[in-house]
């Protein structure tokens, strides 16, 4: 497909385009460069701030490069015991949560491959309904605390174990694996579990990677679960720590505004200087792992969207 296009462009070179189309191409390229800047600049700006000396940052004027480079902000954040704990909880929930959700969802997708499975329609409807209607926040909270899953690491893993959309994507992928492979294994006496793990799973590694990565991004970035259901600071995630730092630095900013308004500036201002640096460093610490990885794994992400968009 792509090759075909490339060929086409070779036959119709720049000279043959009309003036209006040339103008469009140039404008389009300029627009895309501008957009790329808009996508990148906010992050690079905060990265620069996190790498800049704290007192200097509050003077403003930090663009895309630190003016007085230092690692001290990042080291400070990384040396907090909250950050270490946050990393541990986040990594644990990302690994355990992603794998658990993959297994539950993959198993269900595989089961739906079975032709003529009795009650198939009913089970499918049963799994679909929660996509469109739920009990809501408070009933969910009440139930969670009744089954003692609040303030519990499991609240990160179990409730998101099954995902209907992911099941549809996996199923579409598995449906393309020839039936004959499973049939012949069955004739050879292989059990369904064996077929699943030894034949289907190795054949569907690309989609497994996709779903694992989708799950991982969700688990890494989720912070509302902590906000709703966790009170124990030992179970706070990185993103939740970030949320607290953001709210805290806003509160500090408020105090400073009030201090300035009432004519007393002085010592509080130094607080503000570090506020901005702490905030930037916290953002970088909690996002950098994912930002460093995504350009290399994005093709798996995209592949899932492609499969998901093919409706049978």
């Amino acid at each position, binding site marked *: 497909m792509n090759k*075909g296009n490339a060929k086409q462009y070779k036959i119709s070179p720049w000279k043959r385009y009309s003036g209006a*189309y040339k103008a469009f*191409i140039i404008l*389009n*390229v300029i*627009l*895309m460069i501008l*957009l*790329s800047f808009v*996508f990148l600049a906010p992050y690079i*700006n*905060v990265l620069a701030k996190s790498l800049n000396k704290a007192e200097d940052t*509050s*003077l*403003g004027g930090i663009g895309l490069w630190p003016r007085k480079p230092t690692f001290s902000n990042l080291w400070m954040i990384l040396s907090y015991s909250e950050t270490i704990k946050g990393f541990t909880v986040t990594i644990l929930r990302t690994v355990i949560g992603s794998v658990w959700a993959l*297994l*539950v969802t993959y*198993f*269900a997708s*595989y*089961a739906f491959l079975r032709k003529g499975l*009795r009650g198939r329609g009913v089970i499918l409807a049963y*799994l679909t309904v*929660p996509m*469109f*209607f*739920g*009990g*809501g*926040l*408070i*009933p969910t*909270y*009440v*139930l969670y605390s009744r*089954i003692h899953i609040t303030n519990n690491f499991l609240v990160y893993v*179990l*409730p998101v*174990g*099954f995902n209907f959309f992911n099941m549809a994507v996996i199923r579409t992928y598995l449906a393309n694996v020839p039936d004959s492979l499973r049939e012949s294994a069955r004739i050879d006496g292989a059990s*369904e579990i064996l077929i699943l793990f030894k034949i289907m799973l190795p054949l569907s590694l690309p989609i497994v990677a996709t779903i694992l990565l989708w799950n991982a*991004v969700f688990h890494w*970035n989720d*912070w*509302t679960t902590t906000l709703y259901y966790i009170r124990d600071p030992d179970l706070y995630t990185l*993103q939740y720590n*970030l949320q607290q730092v*953001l709210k805290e630095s*806003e509160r500090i*900013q*408020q105090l400073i505004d009030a201090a300035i308004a009432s004519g007393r500036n002085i010592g509080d201002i130094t607080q503000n200087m570090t506020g*901005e640096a702490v*905030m930037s460093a916290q*953002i970088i610490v909690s*996002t950098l792992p994912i*930002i460093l990885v*995504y350009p290399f794994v*994005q093709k798996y992400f*995209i592949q899932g*969207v492609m499969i998901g968009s093919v409706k049978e």
Partner: protein
Amino acid sequence: MTEKIMTKKKKHKFRQDMPFYLLLLPAIVTVFVFSYMPMPGVIMAFKDLDARQGMFASPWAANGGFAHFIYVFTVPDFADAIWPTVWINILSLIVRFPAPLIFALLLNELHKKVFKRTVQTISYLPYFLSWISVTGLASSLLSEYGGINDLINAVAGHRVGFLKNPDNFIPIYLFLSVWKSIGWGSIIYLANIAAISPDLYEAATLDGANRLKRAWHVTMPALLPTAMILLILEMGQLFGSNFELVYGLQNAYFQTEVISTVIYKYGLGSGAMYEATTALNLVQSVVALTLTLGANWISKKVSKVSLW
């Protein structure tokens, strides 16, 4: 005789199906416990909760059980969140929905593959950030001594208190919504464009269609079914709201409340008003469901595109 064979066959079939039911079990249990079991809890909306009696034995609320619904729509703390929710979501739909489609069409016109791929990769960056870090980036960039104010200061010689003017809340909300979703949202349209048969373009060219006409008459119709499906799914969000973005942006000056933030604040936060927040949540869910089903029904009638 035949009956016996039939039951034997059935038994045999059931035994063959058994492994598949077992494989479905974790999903069925997960959905039952975490999605279905909370559902009866909506009864709280119709009750005056009494901790000693429990949710189901508590007495019914006044006004035939609807006291909390009346309360929610009359008390400003709650009622004032309803209109902003709807308004923000209508604006958000208008701005956010077409953006990825237009972006995909423009990306499709880029001839240099390397350039196109680079722009795409960069455009996915916001998708991989959490909403809370996105609001962090925004408040850093828009602060008094942030990047945007540095630019304004260089040009106009003064600084603007973006985050101190409540009027800026909605524009910032809309911008961040588009910023985060446009790149990722374009993938599905690009996949659809790639699937269009080149013959269609050739035929259109032979009929004398220029590039613009080809985009309008060939590309757009091919994207319409996907756009329709996404629109139907969006409809359910009209009465919902992006809790993470609104909650993240709220500060001393941005005090806008939407339904989801009010439910959190008065339900789980300081309020512990279980009945009223559940009532509001129930209204929201029912309206969302109705909108989704309605959009699906209309779409089925008009364009033969539907979710099922």
